[in-house]
C-alpha cells in the first residue's frame, strides 16, 4: 500500500511538472458574449479584440487560452441567457459579459436590461463560470440622466453579484475618430488593440 501511494505521489508530481514545463495544461476557455463591438463589426474577425486577446495570451504561453467570440451585431441583453446556453457545450471557464450597449442606444427601459443581465450572471454563476463584466458608457448626447442611470446599472450589477467590472470597455477608443471606422461608433483595428490592452489586466487576474 505504501508503495502504491509513493507511485501515486510521483505520478502526480510528474504530471504537474509536465503540465507546467511542457504547457500541456488544458486551455482556459473564455467566452465573450457581446454585440457588434465584440463581433468586430467592420474589421475582420481575426482583428476583433477577442481574437487579439487569445493571440496575446497564447504568445506568452502557447495553448493557455481558447476564446469563443459570441458577439452578435445589434444584439441586446434580451437574448443573453439563450446565447449563453448555446455556448455551454463549449464549457467556458470565464465569461466576458459585454452586452447592454444596444439597449442604451435604443433607449430601452434600463430596468429590463439590468434584469436580463442579472439572469445571464446567475446562470453563469450556477455553472461556476468566472465572470468579467464589461461596462459601457453612452455618448454624451443621450443626456445626463439617462447616461447616469446606464453607467450605474453596471456598477450596481457588479456590486450585487460581486463581479469584476471593467468600467468602460471602449476607454480611449469611444469618441476618438482615429480609432473608429467611418460610422464613428465601431472600433477599427487600432481601436480593437486598445480594447485588448484595457481587458488584459482584468483577465490576467481571472486566469
Amino acid at each position, binding site marked *: 500500500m505504501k508503495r502504491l501511494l509513493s507511485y501515486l505521489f510521483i505520478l502526480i508530481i510528474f504530471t504537474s511538472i509536465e503540465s507546467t514545463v511542457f504547457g500541456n495544461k488544458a486551455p482556459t476557455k473564455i467566452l465573450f458574449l457581446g454585440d457588434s463591438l465584440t*463581433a468586430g463589426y467592420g474589421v475582420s474577425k481575426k482583428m476583433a479584440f477577442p481574437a487579439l486577446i487569445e493571440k496575446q495570451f497564447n504568445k506568452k504561453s502557447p495553448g493557455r487560452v481558447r476564446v469563443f467570440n*459570441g458577439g*452578435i451585431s445589434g444584439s441586446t441583453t434580451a437574448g443573453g441567457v*439563450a446565447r449563453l446556453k448555446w*455556448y455551454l457545450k463549449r464549457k467556458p471557464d470565464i465569461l466576458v459579459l459585454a452586452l447592454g450597449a444596444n439597449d442604451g442606444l435604443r433607449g430601452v427601459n434600463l430596468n429590463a*436590461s439590468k434584469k436580463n443581465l442579472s439572469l445571464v450572471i446567475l446562470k453563469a454563476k450556477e455553472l461556476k463560470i468566472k465572470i468579467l463584466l464589461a461596462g459601457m458608457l453612452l455618448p454624451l*448626447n443621450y*443626456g445626463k*440622466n439617462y447616461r447616469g442611470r446606464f453607467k450605474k446599472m453596471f456598477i450596481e450589477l457588479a456590486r450585487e453579484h460581486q463581479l469584476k467590472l471593467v468600467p468602460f470597455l471602449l476607454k480611449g477608443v469611444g469618441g476618438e475618430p482615429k480609432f473608429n471606422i*467611418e460610422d464613428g461608433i465601431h472600433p477599427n483595428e487600432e481601436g480593437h488593440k486598445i480594447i485588448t490592452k484595457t481587458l488584459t489586466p482584468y483577465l490576467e487576474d481571472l486566469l
Partner: protein
Amino acid sequence: MNLPKFALKELMNHRRFVFFFLFNSSLAMLGLVTLENFKFSFNQVLDQRSKQILGADFSVSARRQLKGDEINYLESNLPKATKVANTTALFSMVAGTGYSRLVYLRAIEYGFPFFGHLKLREKGLYPKNVPFDSFLKPNSVWVYPELLIQLNSKVGDTLKIGNKNFIIDDVIDEDTQQTFQMGSIASRIYLSQEGIKRTELIQKGSTVWYGNYYQFTDGLDLEKLQETTRENLPDAGLWITSPKKAGQQVGRVLNYLNDFLGLVSLVALFLASVGLFYLFRSYLKIKRKDFAILNSLGMVWNDIFKLSLWHLAILGFSGSVLGLLISYALIPLTNYLVSFYLPFQLPFQINASSLIIAFGVGTVGNILLGLPLLFSQHENPIDLFQEEFTKTSKEQMKGWMWFLPWVIFYFLLAIYISNSIIIASLFLGLFLGIGILIYPLGLYLLGKISNLTSPKLYLSLAVKNMARFRFSTLSIFISLTLGAMLLTLIPQLHNNLEDELQTPSDGKAPSFFLFDIQEEQVSKLKAYLSSKDVELLGVSPMVQARIQDINGKEFKISTTGRPLTREEEREQRSRNRSINLTYRKGLSDTEELVEGTPFSGRYGGNGDEVAEISVERRYAKRLNLGLGDVLTFDVLGLLVKGKVVNIRRVRWTSFLPNFFIVFQPGVLEEAPKTFLAAIPQLNLDQRTLLPMDMFKDFPNVSMVDLTRVIKRVLLLIKQMGWALRIMAILSLLVGLLVIYSLVGHQVLDRRKDIVLLKMLGISFSDLNKTILLEFFILGFGASLMGISLGLGVSYIVSMLFFDSLWSFRPLLPLGLLVTVTGLSLLVSYLATFRVLRSRVGEWLYQN
C-alpha cells in the same frame, strides 16, 4: 431655277398625296413627341421626388464637422449661386410629462429642406407657408404626432432636452425627408441650430451627424458632381450624396424605369422611321415617272436630285411642325386625361429634347433616308415602260451604300435617346440584320412560289401578286416585322417590370417593423397583438453568421499589398460583416423560384451532412454563386455547411422581412436567434398607442414606424408603374398607327392592279378574297416573325439591363398576333373597298 419654289409648286400639284403623307408623318411625329414629352414629365416628377428625399441637390455629411481643407474644396469647386444649409442630428432621451423616450433630434436652418416640406398641423407647409418670424425659435420644437402621446404632452407643453426646456410649437404630420435609414427607430423632433446648441448635448464624446446641403441652379449633372467630389474628398467618413442615392429605397426600380423610358423613346423613334421610310419609298415610286419625264425634257439629274431633296426636306419639316403643333394643341386634353387617370399630378410639357428629336428625325433623318431611295431613281426614261426592272449587283451595292449616312445618324440619335451604346447598337444591328436576312431570303422564296398554281383563282392571284411585286411585298413584310417586333418589345418589358413594381395590397403594407423579438416572446407577442385585433406578419427567425468559405476557398478579398480602392475597402468591410440567416420550409408569398429545386424537406443529417440553402438572385450574382456551390458559415463559433439548391427572386417591395440566404428546417433551430416581424397598417390611434403599450410589456422589442416612409415609397412606385403602363400603351398606339399607315398605303399601291383585274371580269368576291389572303399571309407571317423577334430581343434586353427579369405570358404575343393580323386585314379591306366599289371608268378618268 429656284428649286425650293419649284419643289413647293410640284408638291402643290400632288395635294392628295401630300395630305396623306403629312397626315401619316405628323401622326408618327405626334407619337414620338408625345412619348418623349411623357418621358420628360415623368422624369421631372421622379427627380423631384428623389430631391425631396434628400431635401437638396447635393449633400456632404459626416459624423464630424467638415475640416478646413474640405470646406475650402467645396467652396471653391461647387458651382456658384448655390444655397447652403447645415443640419445637425443626434439621438437623445427626451422627457415629457412623466415619461421619457428616445428621439431623433434634427436641427435645421430656416429655408431647409430646399425640396420637399414639413407639413405642420397649425402653420401649414414649411418652408413654403412659414415666414421666418414663425420659424423655430431657440427654445421651441416641432414634433412627430406620436411623440405627444408617448410623452403625454400637447402643443404648448414643455419638453426637457438635455439640460434645457423647450416648448412644443407645432406637430409634423408629414415629413418628405423621412427615410428607412436615419432615425427610423425613434420619433423625430425638429429644432433650430441655436436650439441644438442650447441643449448642450454636443460635446466631445457625443455621436452627432453633421449635414451640409446644397441647392444649385438647374441643369447640373449631379451624379458626376458626386463622383468628382468623392475623388477629391476620399475620406470614407464623408457621405457624399446626390438625390438618386438618397432615394435608394427605390433606386433600383428608378434605374429600371429610366432605362425603360429610354427604350420606349428608341422604339418610338424606330417605329416612326419605319413608317416614314415606307412613305418616302411610296412617294418616290410615284415621282419616278415625273423624274424620268423631267429628265427627258432636259433637266439634268443633278437638279432632279436637288429638287427631290427639297421635296423631302419640305415634307419632313412640315410633318415635324404639324406633329409638334398637334402635340401642343393637345396639351390641355393630355393634361386633363393625365389628371383624370393618374393618381398624382403630372404637369405634361413640351421639352427641348423632343423638339430636337422631332426636327432631327423629320428633316435630317428624312433627307438621309431619302438618299438611297433617290439614287435608286436615277434611271432612263425607257425604264418607265417596264413594270419591274432589275439592277446590276454593282448598282445595288451602290444603292445600299447610300444608307450609311442614315445608319450613322440614327446610331448617334439612338445613343442620345437611350443613353446606351449597347442598346443603340443592339437596335440598329437588329434592324439592319433583319433587312439583310429577310431581303435575299424573301426574294428566293418569292421566286420559288411564283410558279405555283391553284385551281382556286383568288389563291393563285394572291401568290402571283406577291411574287410579281416582290420588292414591295418584301418592303411591307420587313416593315410589318419590325413594327410587330417593336410593338412586342415594350409591353413585354413592361410585363417583366410589373412584377418588380407590385406593391402590397391596401392594408397589407406594414406600418411597423419589429426586431429583437426573443424566441420565448413570439407566442406571447402574437397573443398580445391578436387581443388587439392586430395580425403579426412575416415572423422570421434570424440567426447571425459569417461566411467562412465558399467551395473550400476562404471568403476574403485578395491582399495584393497595394492600397485598396475605396470600393475594395467597402467590399472588404461588407465581407467582414455578418450575414443574417433564416430557415423555413419553402418560399414565402413574396418569393419566386428562379433556378434549382425546392428544399427536399427537413434536414435529416446528423450534423456532418451538408444542409440545403436557398440564395437570393442578386446576392448570388454578387458573390458569383451557382447551384451546387457549398458555403461554410460560422454560426457563432459552430461551422455549418450549406449547399445552394435553389436561387430565388425576392420582391423587396413587399416590405416584409426577407433574407439573402435561407436554410432548410432542422439546421439552425438550436442556434441563438431573434425574430423579425411586421405589423400591418393601423389607424392613427392604434399606431400611436400600440408602441406605448408594447414598450411596457416587451421592452426589448424595437419598433420602427414605417407608415410615412412606406406610404411615400408606395406612391413613388405606383407612379413608376403608371409611367410604365402609359408608355407601353402609347408605344402600342404609335405602333398600330404605323401599321395602319403601312398597310393602307400598300393597298393604295395596288389600286391599278385591282382595277385592271376588275376590268378583266374577276368577281368582286374573288378580288376581295385575293387582297385579304395576300394581307393575311403578309400580316400573319410578319407579325409571327416580328413577335418572336420581339420576345427574343426583350429577353436579351432584360438580361443586359433589368437584372434578368423576364417572364413569358402567352396572352401578350397571342393578342398581338391577332391584333396586327386583324388590323392588316381590316385596313386592307377598308382601303380596297372603295376601289372595288368604284366604277372602272371613273377610276380611269381620275388617273
